[in-house]
């Protein structure tokens, strides 16, 4: 078995420790819940990619706020740029469950980078599903290869949870719509080439909103300063500003007034994606905790010997599993276009992002003082997954969506 170590060293430097103490083989059984052999194959590809391409760089990207465009494109060669986009435009044509499994595996290596990939995928899916053939052929091949990056622009400085009340306007003038307003907290803002912007073409309320494809370089489009964030540092966040921004009429996605519905349909999947990224953060944090408690000694024994540690680990694994089951069920429901999919997606996102954040925090606690050091990875998982409770609809909005479904029955 001498060659084992050589391989671990060559193919995945960070896993050298694991090849010796091997957390992986046992804990990864946790992720073997309801997925079949094919899905496991996709999972093992994504995990290998995360272990080799993301994990060794995660802390560096976080520290330097580096957007790893080259690594993203390398992933896109394997199909990560359009996981649930159709194959004729370069997508992988997978379902939501497979996508969730892949995002979970990828985010064990870097949550922030995977979350950006998930947003990009959501945008590609929106164009694939609601765009016309010209729009699909014009934009999607470049997006699935990640030659171009995409951003989703719904939130405004004055319209967060109340997204239906957004105030960016789009006024049709001849062959163009003229857009005015600004969008806040846009992931990929400034780096992306394609922006899916929701703007008001009609009266007040959700039905007056339309969806536009806006290219970087269109006249009147500019960006705010790069935001300084607690986490999600491997992707830039900026405001997107439209001042008499001219968008050709052929860049309207779907019909006028359909924009909010398109945005929400995108978000159902987006919530599963973000929940999946939380699963990966929790999985990696649990693996890190297991590794640490076997090595760290207090009172002359590994802290894994203490019942407090054991019970904590059991609770972490239990809540990770329950989160995973909910996310995967909701993903299945989206695949089947189930009428209750939206509320199940909301509940799954609420549960998974809250619980998985707690798992990261518990892992940090088990690391003791070391967990607070940036030399250890768990702080990155904690900071990166914190925002999952806020975006793609805050977890308070998730409760609104879920309770609305309950009370309307």
């Amino acid at each position: 078995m001498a060659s084992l170590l050589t391989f671990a060293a060559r193919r995945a430097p960070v896993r050298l420790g694991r090849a010796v103490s091997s957390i992986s083989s046992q804990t990864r059984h946790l992720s073997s819940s309801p997925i079949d052999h094919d899905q496991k194959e996709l999972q093992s590809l994504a995990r290998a990619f995360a272990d080799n391409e993301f994990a060794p760089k995660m802390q560096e990207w976080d520290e330097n706020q580096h957007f790893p465009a080259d690594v993203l494109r390398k992933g896109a060669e394997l199909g990560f740029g359009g996981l649930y986009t159709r194959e004729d435009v370069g997508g992988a044509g997978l379902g939501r469950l497979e996508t969730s499994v892949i995002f979970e595996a990828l985010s064990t290596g870097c949550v922030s980078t995977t979350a950006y990939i998930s947003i990009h995928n959501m945008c590609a899916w929106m164009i694939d599903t609601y765009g016309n053939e010209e729009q699909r052929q014009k934009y999607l091949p470049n997006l699935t290869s990640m030659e171009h990056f995409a951003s989703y622009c719904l939130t405004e400085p004055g319209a967060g949870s109340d997204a239906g009340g957004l105030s960016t306007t789009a006024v049709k003038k001849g062959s163009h719509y003229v857009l005015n307003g600004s969008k806040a907290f846009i992931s990929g803002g400034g780096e992306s080439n394609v922006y899916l912007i929701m703007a008001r073409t009609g009266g007040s309320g959700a039905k007056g909103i339309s969806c536009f494809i806006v290219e970087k370089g269109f006249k009147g489009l500019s960006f705010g300063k790069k935001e300084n964030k607690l986490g999600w540092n491997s992707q830039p966040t900026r405001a997107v500003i439209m001042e008499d921004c001219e968008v050709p009429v052929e860049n309207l996605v779907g019909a006028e007034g359909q924009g909010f519905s398109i945005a929400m349909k995108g978000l159902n999947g987006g919530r599963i994606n973000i929940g999946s990224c939380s699963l990966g953060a929790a999985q990696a944090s649990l693996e890190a905790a297991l590794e640490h408690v076997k090595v760290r000694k207090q009172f002359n024994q590994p802290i894994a010997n203490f019942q407090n540690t054991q019970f904590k680990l059991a609770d972490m694994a239990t809540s990770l599993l329950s989160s995973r089951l909910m996310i995967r069920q909701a993903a299945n429901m989206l695949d089947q276009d189930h009428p209750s999919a939206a509320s199940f997606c909301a509940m799954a996102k609420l549960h998974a992002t809250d619980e998985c954040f707690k798992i990261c925090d518990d892992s940090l606690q088990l690391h003791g003082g070391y967990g607070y050091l940036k030399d250890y990875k768990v702080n990155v998982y904690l900071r990166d997954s914190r925002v999952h409770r806020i975006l793609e609809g805050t977890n308070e909005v998730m409760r609104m969506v879920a309770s609305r479904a309950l009370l309307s029955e």
Partner: protein
Amino acid sequence: MSNLRILVATKRVVDYAVKIRVNAAGSAVETANVKHSMNPFDEIGTEQAIQIKEALAKAKTGTAEVIVVSCGPAKSQETLRTALAMGADRAIHVESDVELQPLAVAKLLKAVVEKEKPDMVILGKQAIDDDSNQTGQMLAGLLSWPQATFASKVELGDKSMTVTREVDGGVETIKTPLPAILTTDLRLNVPRYASLPNIMKAKKKPLEKIVASSLGVDIKPRLETLKIAEPAKRQGGKLVESVDDLVDKLKNEAKVL
């Protein structure tokens, strides 16, 4: 124009990152509920065959067909699918539920070679489970073919190949006519990831199943494993008081002086 047929042998082994454990009976390494994957040296072999095929296609100087073969139980097909997803054209599964030792595998491969008539057989230099490092050499012997083992670089010529080998003293470059046996070393290449679409497409590529007994070769094990044990636990270090103390311990405890 050269039209090559390359046969690549692959083995399903316990994944390189798994911490191996001896089974309760002390007779073998525990393989139940343990992650398995393709022997990493065979991944390098598969990658090499695909690179040869791609290079020929790119230079428009010929074509190559890449056939992957695995001998072993039904689950070996997972490994073959991985190779197909990487880019092999078709697969052959020689099914056998009995333990296959290197000589048995070499004989089975010889039978496959006689059927498929490849110009080259690529094998990993060894499998990371039993570390035998025998199958390629035995196959060369059985076929009376030249062999280039521990390859770190391969260049195809006209009905020949030039191979750089990693040997103890440095590197050695040899040239052999084809057909020949090639076994891969660590630095030959870095295997690609199979892309998601290719993983899906691999399911539709042909996979032929041959029952080992139908090949009419004697695959009875020749070796018997008596015992498998974990390495002794490492002892903690000791501090000695003086040089005399050290010399005494080296002489009388370690018995190295």
